[in-house]
């Protein structure tokens, strides 16, 4: 069913899409940049390409990939095709943390901007609370997980609303902008840390992809086919939450990718997680790089929130895929 040839064809095509986006999108922008001049170290091409655009494109690639993968993991965990990286509350936990930092005017904690740090702390607290409530004794059930996550989500959203309501005019504007989500350039050090973490996450998901297949069918099904159910569910929850939290803290919420990329890929490569995990990461990353390029160039010099672009570009494509009624390429 998944032999090596089929695996490498699918993953190779997805990786090619990711790499092409990574190679092309940094060269597109409101000012013309030539790669040859930038490579030769000429100003301002060098600064624009390597200090501004490339870090931003890299972040978009990592963010899109991580969010699509988190969607795959949560959909398998909850056996719900409509689950997103945001279903289980970790995103609103991160958002609440970030909003607190904005409201109290915190600038920096250590070497990092306070918004990132506070967002990560908010996400971490949410994760601990959800795991603590959802794992009664030694068993974990996806139903309790879902209810707990949705409730925590609602509580955090209420907190954000309250803080937003009491915030001053400037803070209020910053909060709205942050909640729209957006990709910014950041230091290569931050990107290196992020890349390491996300690469580890992708690795775990690939190793567990056989078991994800079982889990996406049923808990009884998985438990009698060699899976230690509670630990697999915990790994899935932590993995999806970690991917979502690290991206949300840096970019704010970016919707649609985690829902639509896995679905589109299921129509193309099928439901097998051995294919779905790596292709979702690559296609999600490539897709967000393209969306962010449109977002920063279409109305230059002003920008469109990238979340607007993901839905506006991805939505019609997805509906076309749905209408074309194409069966899986591999089935």
């Amino acid at each position, binding site marked *: *069913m*998944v*032999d*090596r040839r089929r*695996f490498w064809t699918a993953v190779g095509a997805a990786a090619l899409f990711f790499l092409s986006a990574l190679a092309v999108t940094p060269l597109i922008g409101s000012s013309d940049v030539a790669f040859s001049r930038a490579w030769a170290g000429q100003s301002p091409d060098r600064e624009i390409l390597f200090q501004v655009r490339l870090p931003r494109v890299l972040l978009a690639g990592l963010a899109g990939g991580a969010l699509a993968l988190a969607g795959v993991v949560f*959909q398998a965990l909850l*056996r*719900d*095709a409509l689950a997103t990286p945001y279903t289980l509350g970790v995103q609103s936990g991160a958002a609440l943390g970030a909003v607190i930092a904005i409201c109290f005017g915190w600038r920096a904690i250590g070497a990092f901007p306070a918004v990132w740090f506070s967002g990560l702390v908010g996400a971490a607290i949410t994760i601990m609370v959800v795991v603590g409530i959802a794992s009664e004794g*030694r068993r974990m059930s996806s139903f309790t997980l879902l209810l707990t996550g949705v409730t925590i989500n609602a509580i955090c959203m209420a907190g954000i609303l309250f803080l937003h309501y009491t915030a001053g005019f400037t803070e209020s504007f910053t909060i709205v902008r942050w909640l729209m989500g957006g990709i910014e350039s950041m230091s290569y050090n931050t990107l290196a840390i992020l890349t390491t973490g996300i690469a580890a996450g992708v690795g775990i998901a*690939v190793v567990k*992809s*056989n*078991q994800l*297949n*079982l889990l*996406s*069918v*049923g808990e*009884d*099904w998985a*438990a*009698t*086919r*060699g*899976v*230690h*159910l509670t630990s697999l569910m915990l790994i899935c929850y932590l993995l999806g939450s970690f991917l979502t939290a690290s991206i949300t803290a840096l970019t704010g919420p970016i919707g649609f990718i985690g829902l639509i990329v896995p679905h589109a890929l*299921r*129509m193309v490569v*099928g*439901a*097998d997680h*051995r294919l779905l995990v790596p292709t979702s990461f690559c296609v999600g990353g490539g897709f967000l790089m393209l969306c962010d390029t449109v977002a920063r160039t279409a109305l230059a010099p002003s920008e469109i929130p990238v979340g607007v672009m993901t839905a506006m570009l991805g939505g019609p494509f997805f509906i076309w895929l749905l209408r074309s009624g194409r*069966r*899986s390429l591999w*089935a």
Partner: protein
Amino acid sequence: MTLVYALDGVRVRLGSAEILRGISLRFHEGELAAVVGPNGAGKSTLMSVLSGMREDYEGECRFRGVEISQWRKGDLGRRLSFIPQNVRIEFPFTAEQVVYMGRTPHCNGLFETPEDREAVRRAMETTDTLPFARLDFRVLSGGERQRVILAGALAQEPSVLLLDEPTTFLDLKHQISTYVLLEKLAREGICVVAVTHDLNLAASYSDRLVVLSHGEVAADDVPGEVLTRRLLNEVFEVDAEILSGPNGRPWVSYEQPAGQLPTQGRHPW
């Protein structure tokens, strides 16, 4: 016959209700045992203990000499296969992919080996499911799905096969062919335990009938000894005639006792 399961005084409580009240049973290799009983008798709960999914039971449930809760899940997955009632799949897996999932406990690494492929092909041939191997599992009929699930369990190459109502959605031909297959598997040395509501199929093919009632074992013997008018009346609350079936096994013809028939044509609600 090698002993596979030894249960002694197994009790399961769910909240304040006691679902199993001290079950003691033995299951052996090469044996096809049918577990029957009215709704709520504890059949599915018994299966959840046997399959190793439930660890909050009291008493002993030894699987090949070791308490089932002590087994590592991977080791259990290579020895034991469980077919739950009613498998619903949310995602577009093909029938063949569902069967391949049975190979997961045997997998080293990501990809299938030639042995995996051969095991899957054989399992699908045996269950008559090859014609729709490439179809989306969700478009199959209830009976076809059930056969695909059975194929998945066979591909797992277990030495113990546990089934929860394997023939519910099957047409007559496949009900019989499923039991013929289960009987054949038992003859090959597998320990087969099937929960069912079809007393006649169970009586025709199984070596043993285990009757559960209110969480206790009401009877456990060869079908000819178990199926009596008295037992059917007490446990299943039906009036029954025990006839002789074509292969000399008992054949039960039953109806609800006259006093309990619902009022015809006029419903109390």
